[in-house]
């Protein structure tokens, strides 16, 4: 995947670039907003990772606004030290797809990058999600595993849906909190873990192959192979 990183801090840029490259991505780096906008507008990228505050008179929000005006729909992940709720809203309103506040764990960034890059396409909405013998019917809102119906509560259904839409990818606790509960704060205790383990118990009860896996220092992943 080809990623453009626009970040003025050399150390953060080096760290992010190296990490993404190790994860198998092709990363271009622009150290200021002007170069970033030029690269983003003239070349084809699968994802833009933008700092909000950039030198050179063009900040991250301006880059996104300009690109969106030109009809460029490349997914954008904001990476910013501006963490207030209003700032997040401002970034998303401008056309950003996700917002990560500095300081961040690289695992968190990587998980979000991959989630954005392989977003479910809007054109052909799936009505059925499947991972191994687990099947989620989005229309009847039912869950089956191995032909056996599993009772889940509405929120558990949404949790499972989110995991399955990103099957094979790491989904972090914060991502679940934001996407499934729409909570934008740190609940401190690991309530998310309790929710996931409850769901896990329901899914794996009576089956010897676990589907939801814990990824150390990162989050969770649903996948067929152990």
């Amino acid at each position, binding site marked *: 995947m080809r990623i453009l990183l626009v970040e003025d801090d050399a150390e953060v840029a080096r760290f992010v670039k190296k990490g993404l490259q190790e994860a198998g991505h092709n990363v271009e780096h622009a150290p200021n907003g002007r170069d970033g906008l030029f690269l983003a507008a003239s070349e084809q990228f699968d994802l833009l990772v933008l700092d909000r505050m950039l030198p050179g008179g063009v900040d991250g929000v301006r880059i996104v606004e300009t690109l969106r005006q030109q009809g460029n729909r490349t997914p954008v992940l904001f990476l910013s030290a501006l963490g207030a709720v*209003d700032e997040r809203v401002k970034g998303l309103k401008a056309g950003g797809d996700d917002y990560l506040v500095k*300081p961040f764990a690289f695992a968190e960034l990587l998980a979000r990058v991959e989630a954005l890059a392989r977003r479910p396409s809007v054109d052909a909405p799936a009505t059925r999600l499947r991972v191994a013998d687990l099947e989620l019917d989005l229309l009847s809102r039912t869950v089956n595993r191995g032909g056996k119906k599993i009772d889940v509560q509405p*929120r558990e259904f949404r949790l499972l849906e989110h995991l399955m839409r990103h099957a094979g990818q790491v989904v972090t606790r914060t991502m679940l909190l934001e996407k499934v509960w729409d909570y934008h*704060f*740190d*609940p*401190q205790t690991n*309530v998310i873990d*309790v*929710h996931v383990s409850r769901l896990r118990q329901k899914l794996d009860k009576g089956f010897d192959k676990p589907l939801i896996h814990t990824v150390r220092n990162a989050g969770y992943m649903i996948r067929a192979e152990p």
Partner: protein
Amino acid sequence: MSDRARRAAAPRLLQSAGFRFAALFTVLFGAASVTLIAVLWISTAAALDRQVLAAIRADAVALTERWRNGGEGGLVDAIEERLATDLTNESIYLLQDQHGAKLAGNLVNWPTNVELGMTFTRTRIMHDGIPADARVLARDLGGLRLLVGRDESERLQLRLLLTEGVVWSLGASLLLAMMGAALVRRALERRLEPVMRTAQHIAGGDLSRRVPVAGRADEFDRLARSMNTMLDRIQALMQGIKSVSDAIAHDLRTPIARARTKLEEAVETASDEAALRAAMEQGIADLDHISRIFQALLRIAEAEAGARRAAFAEFDLVAVLRDVEEFYGVAAEAREQRLEASFPDSIMMVGDRDLLLQAVANLLDNAIKFTPDGGVIRLLARERDDDWIEVAVADSGPGLSADERARAGERFFRADASRNTPGSGLGLSLVRAVATLHGGRVELGDAVPGATPPGLEVRILLSADG
């Protein structure tokens, strides 16, 4: 004073609001005086004048009538009779024949400037041997010339006196007006001066200064009060910023120092790579903790500054609470605690959904933390009769002593019982800031008064319209 200074002085004087008020005062006062005097004049001097004219005219008409009926003889009799009965000695008559010979009257000669006709004439006559001013009317009665008039000497005297009085009183009112104007200007300056002085002190950096309130409940007091309210707010904001920076300076240093020590120790003493790696992972966790504290501090500051009031919107509080209940219910269940919730169907309110959510989440988080396994936590919301919206979280934990209760809500305060549980000591600070942001407050109490342990109940009171 140089020419330039003199030229500048006039506009500067005009620029003074005090001077303009004073000038306005003078003009109004002067206009009032002039009106008063004009009315006085018209109702005295002018009225006297009119009376004289009316009397002369009536006299002339009556004498003419007498001449028509009684002829020359009758007229002479009438004039003589009138002169005899004129006690005030003001009337003037003269009747002459065609040749200018006097037939009757108290004048010797026909006054030079008086002509026959219908108009009144002012003239100078010799009345009883004394020169006097008179108003006369002369008529031609079939060859006879009749002159009827009134001696005006006394009236003119009166008029002179009146005029003198008017001039004096006009002068006096003008003087009074100017004095009044000066007083108005002084008073205005005196009332505004403290405001100006306070503003200067504040501009100079002394935010504790306030505009003195005279206690007269007038416009100036209202201005002073609004200014003071504004200053209180600004000072509170500054205080907030200061206490956040104090907190950052003081309380972030401790965890930073701790993390630093641990890392340094690891570099010095770690025996193998595994130990070093473990120390670094611990270091990262410590940094994450610090950054969480930082985030919490900023959120509190944001709520306290009231900056988020712009984001207020109407929402259903119960929907939010049901969500939180579901979210934390699982966590309580995992510790075999029971989370009992009781809400009405809906409570509509205006506020910041995100911040309220976080406040309630903080309370539930605390409650779950401090309630022993198997305990009960209650979450309730209701609209009270006194128009407050109450959200209460009660736990069956150790509760807080009165002393601790008073200090709870201070940043980084942690009760003795909580020293060994994870947490930053910022949770209740945020709750308090959020309540204040919504025009409300936080109350702490025993969940079950008298029981051991009493448990803690935290009640957030919110105003329904933000």
